[in-house]
């Protein structure tokens, strides 16, 4: 996607498709395992862990590790910061559409 003056103001961190997917999925369910997220977003282990780590570093998601049947289980949860970021991003998208509609009506 080519950046324009409008998209410059967007939260780059969740502008990336997979990271946006992670945040959206977590906004719908309270906590989700690595495995569930991977299947919902149809991505690979490597991709998911790289992007999840970025979101974790930004404080958008919280990671908890535990053991279930002796297998390590990683679960993700959206933080308040992450929820706010997604809301801000949605507001941005809405503004773009509203402005486009207004511009159309002015013509």
């Amino acid at each position: 996607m080519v950046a324009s003056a409008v998209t410059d103001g967007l939260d780059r961190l969740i502008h990336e498709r997979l990271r946006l997917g992670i945040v959206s999925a977590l906004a719908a369910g309270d906590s989700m395992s690595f495995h569930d997220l991977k299947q919902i977003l149809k991505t690979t282990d490597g991709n998911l862990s790289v992007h999840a780590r970025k979101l974790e570093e930004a404080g958008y998601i919280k990671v908890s590790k535990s053991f279930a049947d002796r297998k390590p289980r990683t679960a993700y949860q959206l933080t308040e910061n992450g929820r706010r970021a997604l809301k801000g991003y949605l507001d941005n998208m809405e503004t773009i559409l509203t402005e486009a509609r207004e511009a159309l009506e002015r013509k």
Partner: protein
Amino acid sequence: MTIPTQSDQQHAQETLAFIRRTMESASTFTPVSGWGLVACGAIGLVAAWLAWAAQIAADLRVWIPAAAISVVFASVANAQKARRLEVPVWSGAFRRMVWVMTPPILAGALLTFAMLVNDAPHMLPGIWLTLYGAGVTAGAIFSVRAIRWMGVAFLALGALALFTPGLGLIALAMGFGGLHIIIGLDIVWRHGG
């Protein structure tokens, strides 16, 4: 004000659709197997026939094994469908669905015991249908719409059986047999298997 370009606008629309899709697949349990429900219905019809042959509508020797076999069939079919659709079986939505359905089912077990102790087995078909209907209707908020209608129909059959216990066995056959098969086939038709 900056005027969004055509591509900004398209991107925004497409992004909102993506967010919506992702949230939907994270919060609904879609792999309810239609064939699994049809199998449960077939088991329900066999159970109803056995109960009729034994002349005891709510014959626990028939219905408890039938329920256990149905749970196994439905679980295997759901797991297979989930694998085919490449979605998680034990997803957050499914976990919540199980949690929501468990209390009415446990209440059903408790009431079954209480009715037997109080020598009122004629109330059992109505109690089973009503509580199963309550559980399915509630659990359906996490799944496809057909399941909700199935729950409501079970509640209606439950009401029928509670107030006309003579129709208990017919209501059981219509519910655990007929409704499962009809809704199962609807899911097979609409949601692919």
